[in-house]
């Protein structure tokens, strides 16, 4: 019964979305205020209906209702409650339902907080947002119904993919989707502005918080996924340039570019057309990401769905929305006139370079991701494009971006002179000195280590100097007092930029200095790598709720001093018939000790791998700091949604 109700409310939401797509659009066109007024209540109603539908599916999972096919395929009565809930979106149909739920919630949020928007713009934004919803409701209802019943319900389910039964991954998809779908707001604003033929500072001020929120969620989602891969896949890799990872990374890169160009629109009324284009591209890449993940067209570690018919449907959605928006863009962009003119040496120019590097790097990732498909279809070559290509092609962009970032961030708007860069001189000297020191200390003489250290120092110290220059002149004690009272946006900027530096350093350090040792250990044997040592003290069988595990007990030592114990496991999930590894990790500030237990060997003993991973946590720590920066910026009163949205910019 509840499943049918969920299905019914989903269909009703589809109908409401159709109304919301058509009526306000005509109302805004003809100037009929009664018709435009339909948009806001329709958005609210649509969100309520789809929320009910999502709740109905959740109930089916929580109560293990095995008359619903989706629950059978993805759940089991023994599964812990957290993963019963996570199982709702741990599959194709449920994740699409989550997608439309978030889409509708964003639309409703725009209706609730959009009181100060021009009524015509608000109606058009909500109509465009609803049109995206209509496409996805149709996709769910016609190809991927989550509420399909079984004629003969089995006694139990087939369990969720064990790799997904992990706290890190349980929350990874919702965050990613909040990011992906959040970018639909920027898209709706862009298309609505193109239809209106008007983009001004108020538009920029509106788009920025939505983009910032989407970017924030995307950052957290990507970091969670990377962290999960690090501890779950058993060898401590954190980024694989897998098509599915790239699918989330490309929108992130474009969203980052959009975030920065929207600042230029808001503050200087320049780069309008480009910002609109980025908003379209950002959501376009979200749709491409959905296509890659949901169609399984590019095989990858995470492809849980493999269905060409669905792929064609999403391709159609992608073509209609991105293609349609781009055509509209080509027709209307010439109308958008820039008002602010800027010099070659200026903050605006630096942000143009930022946008150029981010957008081009996103396209490089895109080319590498789809190249196997193109090569097979166009040239008849079956080939792989793996991490070595992406590392070689992408890293130069990160380095270039890292180098210009602190310089651009202190250049004045409109017209600057090289003199303005003087405060960064000591930072550059410091960064080079650190690079030299690291080079001298590094026995492996790798290039990545010193380079990463220099970029990290350059970005973190650069962000600090940037923050201090905002405090004006005067004595240092006064300026230090003032720095705490700077607006949230200034702190947000500094944190986000510094966080990037920390992440870059973490990636470089881990790649350059990670060490490993592999050996067969009997109980009582030792394995050492550098100053660290582990002793296998025992191996037990452990019965989990829905798995059995072989658990190793290890004592770990640093220079002979005991640090504690680690318990890596090798689990087998009998229902899903799949093994997983649970690494034992001793997390430290400057290094992780990462122990994995393997198979029993023919001659007795167990295969054991010990990794020393320097500065591993800095990778995700930096991402958290970046997200925190986004949050602070979002909380800045000056940028709160709607604040001053109607004000004319000071020119």
């Amino acid at each position, binding site marked *: 019964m509840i499943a049918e109700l969920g299905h019914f409310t989903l269909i009703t939401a589809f109908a409401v979305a159709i109304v919301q797509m058509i009526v306000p659009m005509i109302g805004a066109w003809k100037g009929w205020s009664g018709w435009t007024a339909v948009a806001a209540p329709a958005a609210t109603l649509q969100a309520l209906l789809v929320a009910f539908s999502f709740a109905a599916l959740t109930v089916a999972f929580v109560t293990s209702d095995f008359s619903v096919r989706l629950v059978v395929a993805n759940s089991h009565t023994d599964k812990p409650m957290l993963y019963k809930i996570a199982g709702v979106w741990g599959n194709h149909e449920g994740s699409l339902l989550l997608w439309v739920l978030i889409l509708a919630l964003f639309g409703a949020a725009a209706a609730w907080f959009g009181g100060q928007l021009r009524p015509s713009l608000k109606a058009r934004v909500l109509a465009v947002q609803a049109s995206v919803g209509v496409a996805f409701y149709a996709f769910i209802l016609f190809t991927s119904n989550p509420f399909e019943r079984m004629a003969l319900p089995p006694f139990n389910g087939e369990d969720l993919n064990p790799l997904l039964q992990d706290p890190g991954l349980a929350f990874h998809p919702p965050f990613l989707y909040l990011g992906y779908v959040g970018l639909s707001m920027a898209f709706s604003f862009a298309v609505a502005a193109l239809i209106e033929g008007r983009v001004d500072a108020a538009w920029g001020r509106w788009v920025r918080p939505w983009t910032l929120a989407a970017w924030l969620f995307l950052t957290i989602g990507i970091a969670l996924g990377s962290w999960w891969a690090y501890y779950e896949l*058993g*060898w401590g*890799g954190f980024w*694989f*340039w*897998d*098509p599915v990872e790239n699918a989330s990374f490309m929108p992130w890169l474009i969203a980052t570019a959009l975030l920065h160009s929207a600042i230029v629109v808001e503050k200087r009324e*320049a780069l309008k057309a480009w910002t609109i284009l980025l908003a379209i591209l950002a959501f376009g890449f979200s749709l491409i990401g959905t296509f890659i993940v949901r169609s399984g067209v590019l*095989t*990858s*570690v*995470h*492809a849980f769905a493999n269905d060409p018919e669905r792929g064609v449907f999403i391709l159609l959605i992608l073509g209609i929305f991105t293609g349609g928006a781009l055509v509209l863009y080509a027709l209307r962009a010439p109308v958008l*006139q*820039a*008002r602010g*003119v*800027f010099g*070659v040496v200026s903050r605006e*120019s630096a942000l*143009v*370079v930022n946008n*150029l*590097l981010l957008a*081009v790097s996103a*396209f*490089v990732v895109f*080319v*590498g991701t789809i*190249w196997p498909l193109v*090569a*097979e279809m*166009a*040239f008849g*070559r*079956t*080939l*792989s*494009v*793996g*991490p*070595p*290509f992406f590392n070689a*092609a992408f890293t*130069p*962009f990160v380095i270039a971006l890292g180098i210009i970032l602190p310089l651009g961030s202190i250049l004045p708007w409109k017209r600057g002179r090289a003199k303005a860069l003087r405060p960064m001189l000591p930072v550059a000297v410091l960064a080079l000195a650190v690079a030299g020191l690291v080079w001298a200390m590094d026995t492996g003489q790798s290039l990545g280590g010193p380079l990463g250290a220099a970029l990290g120092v350059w970005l973190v110290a650069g962000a600090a100097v940037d923050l201090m220059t905002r405090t004006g002149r005067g004595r240092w004690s006064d300026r230090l007092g003032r720095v705490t009272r700077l607006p949230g946006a200034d702190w947000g900027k500094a944190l986000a930029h510094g966080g990037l530096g920390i992440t870059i350093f973490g990636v470089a350090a881990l790649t350059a200095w990670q060490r490993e040792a*592999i*050996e*067969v250990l009997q109980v009582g044997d030792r394995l050492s790598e550098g100053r660290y040592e582990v002793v296998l003290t025992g191996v037990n069988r452990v019965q989990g709720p829905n798995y059995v595990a072989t658990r190793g007990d290890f004592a770990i030592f640093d220079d002979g001093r005991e640090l504690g114990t680690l318990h890596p496991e*090798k689990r087998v999930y009998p229902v899903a*018939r*799949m*093994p997983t*590894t649970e690494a034992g990790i001793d997390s430290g500030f400057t290094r992780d000790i990462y122990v*994995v237990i*393997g*198979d029993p*060997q023919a001659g007795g003993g167990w*295969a054991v*791998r010990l990794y020393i991973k320097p500065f591993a946590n800095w990778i995700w720590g930096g991402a958290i700091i970046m997200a925190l920066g986004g949050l602070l910026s979002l909380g800045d009163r000056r940028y709160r949604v709607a604040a001053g949205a109607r004000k004319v910019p000071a020119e």
Partner: protein
Amino acid sequence: MTALRRALLALAAVLAMGSPALAVQPDEVLADPALEARARDLSKGLRCLVCRNESIDESNADLARELRIVVRERLVAGDSDAQIIDYLVSRYGEYVLLTPRADGSNLILWGAPILLILIGGGVAAAAVTRQRRPPEAALDPAEEARLRELLDD
């Protein structure tokens, strides 16, 4: 042919799951550290054919283990890195290489970053240096009328 290969790979992946092993096994490691280091470097650039986007260095599949052993046997026999790669490509096709070769149509792939940054950079430079201040917006007739109205008051 590719559909068949995909199906076989999927089947092999399912079979491989039955016998989980860790990536590089202790018994595979070569006694000579220099050769072992070369083996690891080579392994990182070779695709595990039955896995999804994993190198044979990372993979737990049986086939990956076999390939790791083949690489090491060849190294011990004195082959150069290039010879080993050529041998594996002749056996499994260029699909086995995680670093696509920079030849033929792949030049498009390898040239893309340079080409894109040049085009993008050119467009951006032109846009920045050729900006013109927009003419002060002339008022449209309705605004003119309103302005007169206000002035007349």
